[in-house]
């Protein structure tokens, strides 16, 4: 294939191809049989709904794969590699699984190749609604439980001392990437998805130092997600205030709000 568009357009076409196949209505199933042995012992002869993987590789290369996602492992029926060099795109099939000398899930393989060729031959390729449909389907499906322990409702204070000048300290606080609700003498930020939870900072001169007091208020919401996001953002806020001030003043010292700082985030790995 030659006479290609800019790479972002190629990426758009390939995303489109993956999503179009996913929402095409083709009932794609992948077998647990892999050669003479099943992918996972105990799953002999069964079929599961196929998974499509979209991956941008290093450089102008993409991979679209179809296969079985099972027990956290990937068993591919095939991978299509799209490699762009200059104005030429090479399409190569990798990792092909065959059954009776035929490519497994050949229908999906042909579908992708045909769609990519068709889209890239258009003078001005535009996405259909496949990406949107796959996104909407994903947003309508939720199966997990929130693991974050919520603190809301909660009030706490972070206090710090720094030798930074008031103006420099204030400029630093105004650079904190949280939505500001008030930029007056007291600076107030929204914490979480709704303005009912907030943090506000006051700066006072104490001798030759500056005292900064940050009051954090987490309001309880009947919505578990709102409470979880507010709790996590409070933790992120404290981390950011301490980090931003300490990056300009090594001797800055903070205390308080330990219960917010100690909220767990990030999985402990082996």
């Amino acid at each position, binding site marked *: 294939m030659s006479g290609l568009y800019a790479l972002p357009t190629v990426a758009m076409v390939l995303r489109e191809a993956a999503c179009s196949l996913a929402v095409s209505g083709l009932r794609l199933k992948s077998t647990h049989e892999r050669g003479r042995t099943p992918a996972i012992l105990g799953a002999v002869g069964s079929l599961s709904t*196929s*998974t499509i993987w*979209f991956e941008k590789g290093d450089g102008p290369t993409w991979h679209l794969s179809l296969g079985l996602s099972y027990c956290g492992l990937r068993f591919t029926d095939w991978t299509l590699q799209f490699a762009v060099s200059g104005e030429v795109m090479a399409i190569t099939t990798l990792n092909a699984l065959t059954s009776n000398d035929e490519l497994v899930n050949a229908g999906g393989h042909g579908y992708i190749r045909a769609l990519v060729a068709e889209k890239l031959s258009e*003078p001005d390729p535009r996405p259909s609604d496949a990406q*949107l449909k796959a996104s909407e389907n994903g947003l309508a499906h939720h199966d997990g439980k929130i693991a*974050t322990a919520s603190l809301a409702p909660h009030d706490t204070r972070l206090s710090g001392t720094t030798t930074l000048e008031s103006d420099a300290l204030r400029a630093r606080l105004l650079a904190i990437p949280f939505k*500001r609700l008030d930029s007056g003498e007291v600076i107030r930020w929204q914490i979480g998805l709704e303005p009912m939870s907030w943090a506000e900072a006051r700066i006072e001169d104490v001798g030759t130092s500056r005292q900064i007091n940050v009051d954090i208020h987490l309001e309880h919401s009947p919505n578990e997600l709102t409470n979880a996001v507010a709790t996590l953002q409070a933790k992120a806020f404290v981390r950011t205030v301490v980090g931003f001030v300490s990056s300009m003043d090594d001797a800055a010292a903070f205390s308080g709000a330990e219960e917010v700082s100690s909220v767990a985030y990030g*999985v402990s790995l082996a």
Partner: protein
Amino acid sequence: MSNPAPFGASQSILAPTLIVHSIERYFLADIVIIAQMSVPETTRDLRVPPSKRGIVRSPIERAPHTRTLIVSKLGEHGVLCRCCDVRPEVDTRNEATRKWNWDVQIMPENPARYPGLAGADAREAVNVAVTRFRLTDGRVVAAQELALFRQRLIDGFRAISTDLVVHGGSWEWDMSWWPNAETS
């Protein structure tokens, strides 16, 4: 051939977003980490490979997994955020990062590359690209996490860039997308 702008071509959560802003590049990692930390972790029981005891394998079991976002550095100022389903205390970091649902790369761009979008006097731009994703049953896997991460990311930029312009992709959040969140 013509070069149609990919930004704005689709409002899906998979489409790239170009953010034109006036923030120093060293703030980028802070904005991404705050967005990452704003997405709650979730738990679900997923199948795990049977363990082998001698020559006998145990039956397939389910084990609790945590869906979490892992951030790493990408080049000098770029950041990669990866959504993974991880077995806490069991998976190593390598194993965890192989269990991805999606990747988002947040890379500084030269705004001059996008004259029609960034404006002649634009100082900085960032390209937010979904570089990996999985689809099953006609849907994007871990779509809620992706949508919430994108919205929090834009929110971070918007908080400190007065002249922010955002092109392309979906970056809104709707509470109905997390339907199990109502507790009372």
